[in-house]
């Protein structure tokens, strides 16, 4: 297995090539652009035998993906922010029709004001669209999870589109050391995609018929059941992948959390910086640990409950607002823990909107401030950290 220094976007493009993707729909938006640019080069050089569809908008990008996937071609696209929002309507169709499209989202804040920098507002706005959603923290994970995403999405009992999130710039534009897999290894891991009911004149099917009230609920229930039961496939695929690569992934990952009274929970590249804060505070003898939420949909309720069962305080750092409501990750976690008799006190913070940095020292402050709030019982409202007054 070779190890190369490479930008996160290019590492993803390498994974797409190794996955022998057959159709790529592309529409540029920062910070996703490098992915589809690199794929265009691969196609132009004959390194990847795929149809490259340079569409006129993201709405059409996802729509073209519906078509390529429905005839049975392995399909990929990438987007961010406004592009993801423009796709919004089509995302529900992709999952409702059970088309295993794989998409990278290079997370970026939403307008207005216009911002090209990272936060998770775009991801959270698509929370309920019925896709499998996974967060990667660095280039290596992006490479690994891209390959896994196809295996998961195309599994005959899953057949659901899969979105994997990387933080814009932090992952997409940072050069890191990445360990790649050989083509033969990937070929074995990832068999050919065959949709069980493709559009085919020899076996005509009607796809996307309309659902009167007597059948709509049942269709949605089936979708919900499929998404939930995808978790066992996700676990199996990640396990297989770990045998292949030595790298382990699970829905909820704990970092130095065994004896921790206080846990910090976050998603995406943040957790890399947060680890530094945890290391330092533990060295000082403090009982703090870190929880990284890897799988966002289906929501890993069981694993989360398990991971926080011994903690007294759980500090949740959201990178998005739910304007006028509770921050999205926090509200999910509150909902997951509420039925338990004993549960940690939850402190909710929102930070790093539109690309504002939080340093390792910043994370220490967040944890300290969270513990104070928990002691004082100030658990009612979330707080946006680092606001300049």
């Amino acid at each position: 297995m070779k190890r190369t220094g490479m930008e996160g976007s290019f590492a993803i493009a390498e994974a797409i090539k190794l996955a022998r993707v057959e159709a790529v729909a592309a529409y540029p938006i920062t910070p996703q652009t490098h992915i589809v640019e690199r794929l265009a080069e691969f196609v132009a050089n004959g390194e990847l035998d795929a149809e490259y569809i340079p569409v006129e908008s993201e709405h059409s990008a996802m729509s073209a993906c519906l078509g390529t996937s429905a005839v049975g071609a392995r399909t990929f696209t990438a987007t961010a922010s406004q592009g993801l929002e423009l796709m919004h309507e089509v995302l529900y169709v992709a999952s409702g029709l059970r088309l295993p499209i794989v998409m990278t989202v290079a997370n970026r804040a939403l307008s207005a004001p216009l911002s090209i920098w990272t936060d998770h507002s775009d991801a959270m706005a698509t929370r309920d669209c019925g896709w499998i959603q996974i967060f990667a923290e660095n280039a290596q994970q992006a490479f690994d999870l891209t390959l896994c995403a196809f295996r998961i999405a195309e599994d005959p009992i899953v057949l659901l589109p899969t979105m994997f999130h990387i933080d814009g710039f932090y992952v997409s534009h940072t050069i890191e050391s990445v360990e790649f897999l050989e083509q033969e290894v990937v070929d074995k891991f990832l068999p050919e995609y065959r949709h069980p009911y493709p559009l085919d004149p020899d076996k005509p099917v009607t796809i996307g018929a309309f659902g009167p009230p007597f059948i709509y609920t049942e269709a949605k229930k089936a979708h919900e059941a499929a998404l939930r039961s995808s978790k066992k496939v996700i676990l199996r695929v990640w396990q297989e992948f770990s045998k292949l690569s030595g790298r382990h992934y699970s829905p909820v990952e704990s970092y130095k959390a065994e004896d921790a009274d206080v846990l910090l929970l976050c998603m995406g590249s943040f957790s890399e910086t947060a680890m530094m804060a945890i290391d330092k505070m533990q060295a000082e003898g403090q009982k703090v640990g870190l929880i990284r939420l890897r799988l966002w949909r289906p929501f890993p309720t069981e694993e989360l409950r398990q991971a926080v069962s011994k903690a007294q305080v759980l500090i949740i750092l959201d990178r998005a607002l739910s304007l006028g409501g509770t921050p999205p990750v926090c509200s999910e976690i509150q909902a997951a823990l509420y039925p338990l008799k004993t549960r940690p006190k939850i402190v909710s913070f929102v930070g790093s909107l539109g690309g504002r940095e939080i340093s390792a020292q910043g994370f220490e402050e967040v944890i300290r401030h969270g513990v104070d709030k928990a002691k004082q019982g100030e658990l009612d409202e979330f707080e946006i950290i680092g606001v300049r007054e």
Partner: protein
Amino acid sequence: MESLAIYVPRLVTTKEYFAPGHRACMGCGEALAVRLVCKALGRNIIIANATGCMEIVSSPLPSTSWEVPWIHTLFENTAAVASGIEAGIKVLRRKGKYTKRTKVVAMAGDGGTADIGFQALSGVLERGHDLIYICFDNEAYMNTGIQRSSSTPLGASTTTSPAGKVSIGQTTWKKNMPAIAVAHDIPYVATACHSYPFDLMNKISKAIEIKGPSYIHILSVCPTGWRLPSDLTIKAGRLAIETGIFPLYEVEKDRYTLNLDFPQLRPIEDYFKLQGRFRHLSKEITSQIQERVAAEYAKLKKKATSNNY
């Protein structure tokens, strides 16, 4: 012998790919047009259909009127979905995983074509996908209850462009979609109407053979939206052509052909008076429209004659 020579080319398959039992209104010209189109397309096709009357009347779960592979996803993205199907087949064929010669067909109403789906359509025509795009133009958003579209003709009363004390109904001229398609420099553009079934089916057969995008614009009479007795659908379609309001023509590359020409066009009143949607129009407005129709027809005729060789 002689009568056979006339008869045989007019033989049409008895096979229906748009099966009976759909829920279109009585006398629906759009349903008739779809049926004729499907006969001409045959079975080796894949259809992507936009939201609108035809999708709704043909596909309430758990039944379907489609005897060919058919996909509906959204209102405005049909061209894009079709382009994906075409691209998908292309790559699978290259890799030896798909061996049939299948034509991809996109179908949408005038709203799904001239308004909300306009961008996706333009993208597809510009990228040159090998597919047929068919607009079934009933001159309004019929599925949602007769609202105006940019394809509604001037003076027509609809629920969002109602005729009133100070309004004539639709205040803008019908968008010229075929001309816009021609401007994309595609190999084949044609207009058609269900009231001329052989002309319509011939055009579809031609489009199947063409490599690259074709655009076919089919005037589809809607008795419900046009306020017209349902037994007058065919007649209304014929009058649209005989008055020159909707000429039947083809554009192959830059060559225009007027398929049905009339030494003398009928007055547009003949067409208007059948329909409730034009009932309120004054003589003045009618003659304004008449002038425009004559001018547009003359322009088209000039294009058609200037490329005669």
